[in-house]
């Protein structure tokens, strides 16, 4: 009898992929040595990457990868939100609309640009302007970056499973970068989006000698205006800075000049 109830209490998890490259789903398997331990803590009911079976009706935790680009995705998210006690987004596409979000600018006339007047009816029926998951439903936890760090995913999943405080810091990246004891790209006239990008990744790209491209998303506490001034001071035109931000933050509120 006790076995039955224990089994019942294991959280049922579903993992859904929307518009994305599925790279974050794949990256989850990169916890390799710990994968069975992680799967042992959950009842994995649905993983889009691994099975063609339809998503079950009942589950406790939903993990969502990808941006919202279709009406079907909107309906899927609404269904997920009704059912799940916790919704976790993984990756930049889900968090900020990411790469699919780049299509947001000039979205409306684009079908006509491609098809002329003969736009197939199905385009209007299924496609919609790209959005982040949190623009459609309430999100409880977020695993940022492109791709996600699999250990960060496990950490956030455990927060959802065991009920930890969802608070995460919103300071921007330079503080973490300094801890790696790296000089600043701006001192060399190289643009880096760490000035406005949310911390948490450990500034690993700058640590490897590459400027931040903003995949963790613009922090809600970012000072974008101030960062443009800093960039300009280092000889980088604000327009170039804004253009670079479009890759992962096309639809983020407050980022547009």
């Amino acid at each position, binding site marked *: 009898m006790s076995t039955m109830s224990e089994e019942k209490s294991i959280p049922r998890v579903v993992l859904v992929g929307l518009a994305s490259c599925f790279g974050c789903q794949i990256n989850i398997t990169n916890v390799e040595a710990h994968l069975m331990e992680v799967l042992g803590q959950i009842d994995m009911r649905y993983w889009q990457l691994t099975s063609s079976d339809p998503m079950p009706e009942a589950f406790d935790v939903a993990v969502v990868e990808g941006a919202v680009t279709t009406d079907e995705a909107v309906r899927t998210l609404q269904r997920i939100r009704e059912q799940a006690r916790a919704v976790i987004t993984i990756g930049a596409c889900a968090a900020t609309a990411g790469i699919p979000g780049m299509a947001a600018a000039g979205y409306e006339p684009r079908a006509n640009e491609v098809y002329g007047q003969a736009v197939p009816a199905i385009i209007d029926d299924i496609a919609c302007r790209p959005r982040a998951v949190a623009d459609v439903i309430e999100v409880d936890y977020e695993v940022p970056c492109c791709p996600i760090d699999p250990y960060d995913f496990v*950490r956030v999943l455990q927060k959802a499973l065991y009920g930890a405080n969802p*608070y995460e810091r919103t300071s921007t990246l330079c503080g973490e970068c300094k801890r790696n004891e790296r000089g*600043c790209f701006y001192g060399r006239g190289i643009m880096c989006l760490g000035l406005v990008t949310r*911390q948490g990744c450990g500034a690993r790209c700058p640590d490897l000698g590459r400027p931040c491209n903003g995949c963790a998303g613009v922090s809600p506490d970012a000072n974008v205006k101030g960062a443009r001034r800093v960039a300009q001071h280092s000889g980088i035109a604000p327009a170039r800075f804004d253009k670079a931000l479009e890759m992962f933050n096309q639809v983020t509120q407050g980022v547009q000049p």
Partner: protein
Amino acid sequence: MLYRVIDAHELPALVQAFMCDYEVIAPVRSGKSFAFEAIDSFDDIVLDYPTTLTSLKKYYLPPRETLFEYDMVDGVTDYRMEVRPRVLFGAHACDINAINALNLVFEDPRYPDPYYEAHKKATMIVGISCMPGDSCFCHLLDAGEVRSGYDLFLADIGGRYLVSIGSVEGADILEAACDPREATDEDRRAFRDYTRRRQRAFNEDIPSVQEIPMLMDAFHSDDFWEELGSRCLNCTACSSVCPTCYCFDIRDVLDPSGKTGRRERVWDACTSPQFALVTGGHNFRPGPRERVRHRMYHKLNGFNAKHGRYLCVGCGRCVKACKADISPIEVLRFFEQKGIEDGERDAD
């Protein structure tokens, strides 16, 4: 204070002697800048380095440190810290003063910190004289000279070092490795010449301001803080590089198994937006104006009230790290400007 003189060519032997029993941390080249790192050879040390990107506090208060471990079966186990005996070789006066300020906090007998204490007990300090760079203002905050907190302090007086001896352990290693001699009057005059040369080398564009703590109170509500805060990028680079920012957060970190984990102490910063966020959702310092002002207050006012010294040692690291040009120098400039304006007003 006990002084001895050694020749410059004896320095490698001194470092070599430390290397026998200690991990030697020293300033080395790191990209376009410098960093304190463990060294294998005396030749890696850059003795006349201007400053480093980050400070020595990482050896006393690591950016991430395990406090204890826990296990679903065995409960909590005290963490046995592996502390390596270390020598911090080549610390500047400002940085030794910074460690002295940290000692006041972490060695407070009411709240002893065993983790800090373990690091401190295992760490020796060999200081070295310096010439100030453009961003240095240690002399304006009583941190340009250091009178305690080191085992040895080496002052370069041209081809030889005037060695100030601060501990028996330091003296023993000096005696064993080198051939220290009594200082002559010529050595003392050379030391005087060095201190004068150094004094003249400070950047005169950084204003010397009297009664800073009182001025911090007098201008607490000035629009200046709004302007300074409006520039802040909320990145916390200032406190990452600061040798005296000691605030930390404590977090429980579960292993992927979900069965074991650690309680960790990690660096925090009062310039982080969540620093003053409390249960219930209220944030006591909700904006950058309040956060930047608070940081400057603690450095230039609050710490003085409690410990009788500034918490800023004028090392100038934040001056370089802050892309928005926010630093104590800006505060000194503001006070200087206010002084001029008030003087003009009184003259009218």
